[in-house]
């Protein structure tokens, strides 16, 4: 049969980002998909020789605008472990509260984009309307809607007062109720079921073989979550990763929906357990220049992210490297795209929650 090559991207209506795939088609079936990258490559990791390590945190934050808080936090955690800085307790709790809020934000954003991809624009609007609530919380507490710039090496720059924290929890509860109404639509709507169920199935064995991470792996039943390692105070809260077994597009939607509820529950626990009071210390300034190397792992909304930092005792780091979750999920995406119908390609690409600016940095 005759083969056709259809280019997907870099400018494509379904995805704001320039993901480029050359789809090799036989009739309507996709035989092969060849990704091309580099359209958003900025050379961010190489900026360590131009930007001092104290300011590099702001560059790392801008790896990606969706999980920018987690990137800033990961960089600061890495530097803190190299320089052995003790971070004040309240700052550590505030960090993971913000991290969970940004997970809710990212998942709501994705649920909206996913709904838009399978042609349910109404649901897209509803998800993004809820997301604005989260952005209001962020702007009130950190000063920025998207890029927060509150993480510093040794702590955080701003405090959330105890009364404000209670207000945030109440607001998130209200959001959770509104979210339930939307979640019912995702779960029951026949058109969604028709487009998502049984499409792009990744079995548990395959998920392990291609090293899928995050919600992608959890939707295939792989019990994998960096938070299980208990770092960053996650050992002090009750936590069990959300698992689904079907491994299709619908399962990936369901995992993210359940993670929104789980994050709201985690924030409840965190606010209960954190040290209370006004004027507690938030930042221990590091002394001298860093020397040594370290790996840091974090669970981002899209999966596990790994940072490698090597410092040589000067103001400039020797090497900084980030392995972002979308980069790890691309092999899984290529595997799923092979053999599916052309019309399902946007759906499958979106359900891995691609973040191209993370991937190419």
């Amino acid at each position, binding site marked *: 049969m005759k083969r056709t090559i259809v280019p997907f991207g870099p400018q494509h209506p379904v995805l704001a980002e320039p993901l480029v795939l050359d789809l090799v088609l036989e009739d309507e079936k996709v035989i092969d998909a060849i990704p091309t990258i580099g359209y958003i490559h900025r050379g961010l990791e190489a900026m360590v020789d131009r*930007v*001092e390590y*104290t*300011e590099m945190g*702001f*560059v790392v934050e801008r790896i990606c605008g969706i999980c920018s808080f987690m990137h800033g936090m990961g960089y600061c955690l890495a530097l803190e472990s190299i320089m052995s800085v003790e971070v004040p307790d309240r700052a550590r709790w505030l960090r993971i509260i913000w991290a969970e809020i940004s997970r809710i934000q990212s998942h709501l954003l994705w649920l909206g984009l996913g709904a838009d991809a399978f042609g349910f624009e*109404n*649901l897209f609007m*509803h998800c993004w*309307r809820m997301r604005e609530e989260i952005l*209001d919380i962020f*702007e*009130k507490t950190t*000063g*920025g809607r998207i*890029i927060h*710039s509150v993480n510093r090496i040794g702590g955080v*720059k*701003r405090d959330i007062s105890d009364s404000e924290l209670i207000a945030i929890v109440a607001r998130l509860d209200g959001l959770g109720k509104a979210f339930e*109404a*939307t979640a*019912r*639509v995702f779960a*029951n*709507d*026949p058109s969604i*079921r028709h487009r998502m169920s049984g499409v792009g199935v990744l079995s548990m064995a395959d998920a392990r073989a291609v090293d899928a991470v995050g919600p992608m792996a959890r939707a295939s039943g792989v019990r994998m979550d960096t938070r299980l390692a208990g770092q960053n105070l996650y050992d002090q809260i009750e936590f069990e990763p959300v698992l689904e077994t079907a491994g299709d597009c619908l399962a990936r939607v369901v995992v993210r929906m359940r993670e929104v509820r789980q994050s709201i529950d985690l924030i409840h626990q965190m606010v209960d357990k954190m040290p209370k009071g006004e004027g507690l210390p938030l930042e221990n*300034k590091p002394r001298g220049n860093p020397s040594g190397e370290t790996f840091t792992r974090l669970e981002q909304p899209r999966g596990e992210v790994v940072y490698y930092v090597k410092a040589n005792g000067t*103001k400039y780091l020797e090497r900084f490297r980030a392995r972002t979750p979308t980069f790890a999920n691309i092999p899984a995406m290529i595997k799923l795209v092979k053999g599916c119908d052309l019309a399902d390609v946007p759906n499958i690409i979106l359900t891995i929650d691609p973040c191209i600016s993370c991937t190419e940095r």
Partner: protein
Amino acid sequence: MSNPFRLPMAPRAIRNLFSKPATRRYPYEIRPRFDGARGTIKFDVDTCNYCTLCAKRCPAAAITVSREDRTWAIEHLTCIGCNVCVEVCAKKSLAMSTEAKHVHTHAEVGPQGQRPGHEEWHGADPAIAAAAAKAAAELSIDAPSS
């Protein structure tokens, strides 16, 4: 599940019909920004001692300071609003206002070819400058990071 007459979106749609619109009609209806939201950098030329620490620490290199000419300039188009310059300023000459950055057009190119969004201040008389230079020398000794 396969019943096509099930309309899960219907209750939501009916509620939306009778509730007030979610849209904020922006240019006509402006919500005040939250306290502490980061917007535009404000500079006070009278208190600045031209220690250049803000320019050194700016991750985007948006600030240029000249101790000799006593000028302080910022490119608002390059500024990323990270608040670092405000934090390091010993003289509290810098402040982060909540006012959002202004939109600039191509027509705003300055007389010496300054890009749109360029803002520049010139310091006052040399007696103040001498005192400022002394203070700056003291400050650069305790400056961290080196």
